[in-house]
């Protein structure tokens, strides 16, 4: 400053100096933190040296304290915005509390998945019951009037099966595995079924009403088909044809419906929690169950696409079907009991 100035105005210079030095002294820390964050966000923390890893929380706290100081003393809004965004990034990274992938997968199969399904046992029972009601209704409707069959099952899905089809045709559909497109068919079935399951889950949001209808209708279709075969004396054979993958697939769909119902009922009747918190709780359990559902449907798709086409013996089909069912029930409901007993 060359010209002498009235004291009052230039007193601001002292403040300016101290804030400039605050920034000068802390700036290196901020830059180091920013560079470190950019690295850990892109790659695994494993790539950091031990020293860098230990410095991460220190640099984070330094950035936070800089933010507090800047907010209280500085009017440079760009500086404050920078520190806010830096601290927020650091906060999300450090308090993200992420487990390693392997541990997470292990936990999912050991605790989370069976736990979520056990948690949903009441809804699962209801949705299985709904399916059986649907089966009964479908069979009864088609038995009383053949016209119902076309109304219940879309013609594309029926593929010639119907109340008027001959017994030979119906039989050939059960045992004709020679279509040369097996694993492709399995992949298609898997993706299709997962989409249906997700729908059953997501629709639960509307107070579970659409999910209930979907479960009933699913049962109706099964019942209608069953009635057609039963009338021709092919009931047992159809049972085998369905059982090989159906125990897994229908169980999975029932669980998806149960997940949807959980969400719908918790939104309708949140109990002591607020509606939002209740919905969030239900959503998390249901989501875990849904991941499990897609794994089950993967098995079902493989069994349906490959197993059913190559295995044509009724006994084997029933054996595989009930074996899978026993496996799932054991895994979901009994596994926990055994492990608790060990402890």
């Amino acid at each position, binding site marked *: *400053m060359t010209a002498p100035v*009235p004291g009052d*105005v230039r007193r*601001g210079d002292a*403040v*300016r100096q101290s*804030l*400039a030095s605050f920034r000068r002294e802390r*700036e290196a820390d*901020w*830059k180091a933190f920013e560079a470190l964050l950019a690295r850990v*966000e892109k790659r695994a923390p494993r790539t950091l040296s031990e020293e860098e890893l230990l410095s991460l929380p220190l640099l984070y706290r330094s950035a*936070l304290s800089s933010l*507090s100081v800047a907010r*209280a003393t500085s*009017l*440079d*809004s*760009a*500086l404050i*915005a*920078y520190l*806010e*965004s830096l*601290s*927020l*990034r650091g*906060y*999300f*990274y450090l*308090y993200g*509390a992420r487990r390693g992938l392997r541990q*997470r997968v292990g936990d999912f199969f050991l605790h*989370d998945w069976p736990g979520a399904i056990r948690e949903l046992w009441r809804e699962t029972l209801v949705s299985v019951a709904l399916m059986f009601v649907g089966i009964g209704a479908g069979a009864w409707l088609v038995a009383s009037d053949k016209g119902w069959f076309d109304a219940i099952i879309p013609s594309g899905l029926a593929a010639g099966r119907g109340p008027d089809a001959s017994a030979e045709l119906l039989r050939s559909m059960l045992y004709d595995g020679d279509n040369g497109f097996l*694993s*492709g068919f399995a*992949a*298609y079935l*898997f*993706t299709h079924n*997962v989409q249906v399951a*997700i*729908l059953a*889950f997501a*629709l639960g*949001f509307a107070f579970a009403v659409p999910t209930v209808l979907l479960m009933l209708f699913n049962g109706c279709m099964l019942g209608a088909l069953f009635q057609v075969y039963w009338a021709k004396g092919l009931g047992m054979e159809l049972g085998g044809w369905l059982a090989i993958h159906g125990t897994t697939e229908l169980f999975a769909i029932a669980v998806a419906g149960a997940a949807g119902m959980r*969400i719908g009922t918790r939104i309708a009747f949140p109990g002591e929690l607020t509606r*939002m*918190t209740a*919905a*969030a*709780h*239900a*959503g*998390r359990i*249901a*989501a*875990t169950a*849904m*991941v499990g559902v897609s794994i089950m449907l993967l098995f079902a798709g493989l069994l349906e696409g490959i197993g059913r086409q190559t295995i044509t013996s009724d006994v084997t089909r029933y054996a595989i079907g009930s074996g899978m069912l026993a496996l799932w029930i054991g895994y979901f409901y009994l596994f926990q009991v055994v492990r608790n007993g060990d402890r």
Partner: protein
Amino acid sequence: MAIARRAALATMRSLITPEGVDLQIKLADAGTRAAAFLLDVVFIATAAITVTIVALFGVTGFGTDKLQPLFIVWIIAIFFLRNVYFIAFEAGRRASTPGKRIIGVRVASRNGAGLSVDQVIARNLMREIEVFLPLSIIAGRSGMGVADTLTTVFGLVWALLFALFPLFNRDRLRIGDLLAGTWVVEAPKRTLMEDLSARKDPVARTFQFSHAQLDAYGIAELHKLEEVLRRDDYFALRAVAETIGRKIGSTPQAHDARPFLTAYYGDLRAHLERKLLLGKRKEDKHQR
């Protein structure tokens, strides 16, 4: 301006870290989120079309005997694009899809704790009824010919109800967010900008301001001035210099607008920061 500030405050939420600092997160508004989603849709569609073209080339190249493995790869790839794209990216370290990353937003847990994978899954599975179901209802109308006008209207109303859901609540939650206990916050990457009051400008040193001249404005105006200086647009600088000059009774030369404003910014900031240290926060020019 007061209205604009109130609108900005409406989307601010406090996030208090365990260290006791309020980080003041800003929720992403509906437009931002729609833009991010559209970007993701473009990415997914591009990838899907590429996969399909590659698969078709594969069929013509290898012949039909390789049809089955190609079909499996194709169907699994499409399945992954539809269901796993969002989940995989949001479960990652940055909790955002490429679209969100470009826009500068990320997913966060509403209770401030770390975002868990089941939350990410829950919020993304709900997309099925928000986006894909209404789309398939509308597509089904032309495809199957079973739906009449009434069902299409119903489908559209349904679609709009869910698509516009974020506009109807305070936290801009979509259904998936509501169920997962998440929200979408702005997390832009900012670079450290230069300190304007440390700018060395020889012309700026010639300007001196009196106490009364510095008392003309407050913090709100200071921040506007900072914005103008950082944007560095010649005409804006001139207009602002004229306005300030008129108010404080000092008219700089037209070509001196930038140094004049730099000098005034530096002095005003030092003046207001000194007041701040003394415990007086002058929010805007109306406050005495």
